[in-house]
């Protein structure tokens, strides 16, 4: 019965299946010659078997509901599109902010553009995005005669 303490810790560990193969062999050799340690192994196994009869306590429903209510009321609601985007990509926040600002700026510009066009055509605005110059072209008989003369001269 030399150095039983070392083996006693191993007895506790073997019950939990936490011994290496080498330690297992050492303990087995020791138990073969030590009645006290063999008895301890039996006792600790019996003690452990008692724990197998326990039933687990379950969290009362009232407390469960309190936790779920508290957490769901503090969670921001997400639209399906927002959820899809955020679940698909991981992007730095500054990039997201710049991209968002650009989209808003483009949208605002696109909305205001028709208003500028309308103000210009009605004559009230001073800004001209699309200057339009209309010329009236009048063809007279004189022009036709000139064309005929030119054709005759050149034997066309």
């Amino acid at each position, binding site marked *: 019965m030399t150095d039983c303490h070392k083996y*006693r*810790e191993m*007895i*506790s*560990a073997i019950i*939990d299946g*936490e011994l290496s193969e080498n330690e297992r062999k050492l303990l087995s050799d020791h138990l073969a010659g030590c009645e006290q340690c063999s008895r301890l192994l039996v*006792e*600790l196994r019996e*003690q*452990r078997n*008692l*724990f197998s*009869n*326990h*039933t*687990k*306590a*379950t*969290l*009362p429903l009232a*407390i*469960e509901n*309190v*936790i*779920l209510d*508290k*957490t*769901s009321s*503090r*969670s921001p609601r*997400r639209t399906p599109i927002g*959820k899809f985007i*955020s*679940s698909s*990509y*991981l*992007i*730095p*926040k500054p990039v*997201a902010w710049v991209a968002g600002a650009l989209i808003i700026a483009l949208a605002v510009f696109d909305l205001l553009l028709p208003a500028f066009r309308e103000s210009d055509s009605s004559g009230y605005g001073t800004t001209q995005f699309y200057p339009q110059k209309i010329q009236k072209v009048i063809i007279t008989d004189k022009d036709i005669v000139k064309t005929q003369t030119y054709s005759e001269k050149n034997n066309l």
Partner: protein
Amino acid sequence: MSLDRFSDSLQGGFWVARSGSDHSDFCIHFHENKDHIFDFALRMLGDKQAAGDITQDVFMKLFENRNRIREIQNIRGWLFISARNMCLNHLRDRRKVISMEEIDQEHSNDSAGDNPQLGILKKAMAELDDRFREAVILREFQGFSYSEMAEILQITVSAVRSLLFNARIRLRENYEKIEKARLI
């Protein structure tokens, strides 16, 4: 930018959050672990009300850290570390020895009435020191391995082995003492 701020920014401040850290992820971990945490707290404290409060605090803490859920390697371990710390703080504040009757009443679902040995075991458990009791609870009731226990208790695996052995020996002594007292 200081190292702490940089670290903080990497942990969720800088990046746009993904759906993995929203309420649905929280709910999955909540439903998987709520009974384990409550059972652990109840066996540590022997007080249903306090165990309920601690379970609530543990999960609210997880919810506060929901943006980091994906970064936490072992959620169950994280929850047990939180629960353990809260239980120890509670016991420290309370400075109250858990009464044996209280433990019996709280675990009336167990078949202690039919099995006198189980009743004695519960009383023997209630008389253990906090560090021994938590080791036995984590191993016997929650089924953690030595390495998982080492993480939760923040000690080495060999220290877990030694702690568990001493806890079992003390439990056996308590058990024999209570059994003798019953027979007299």
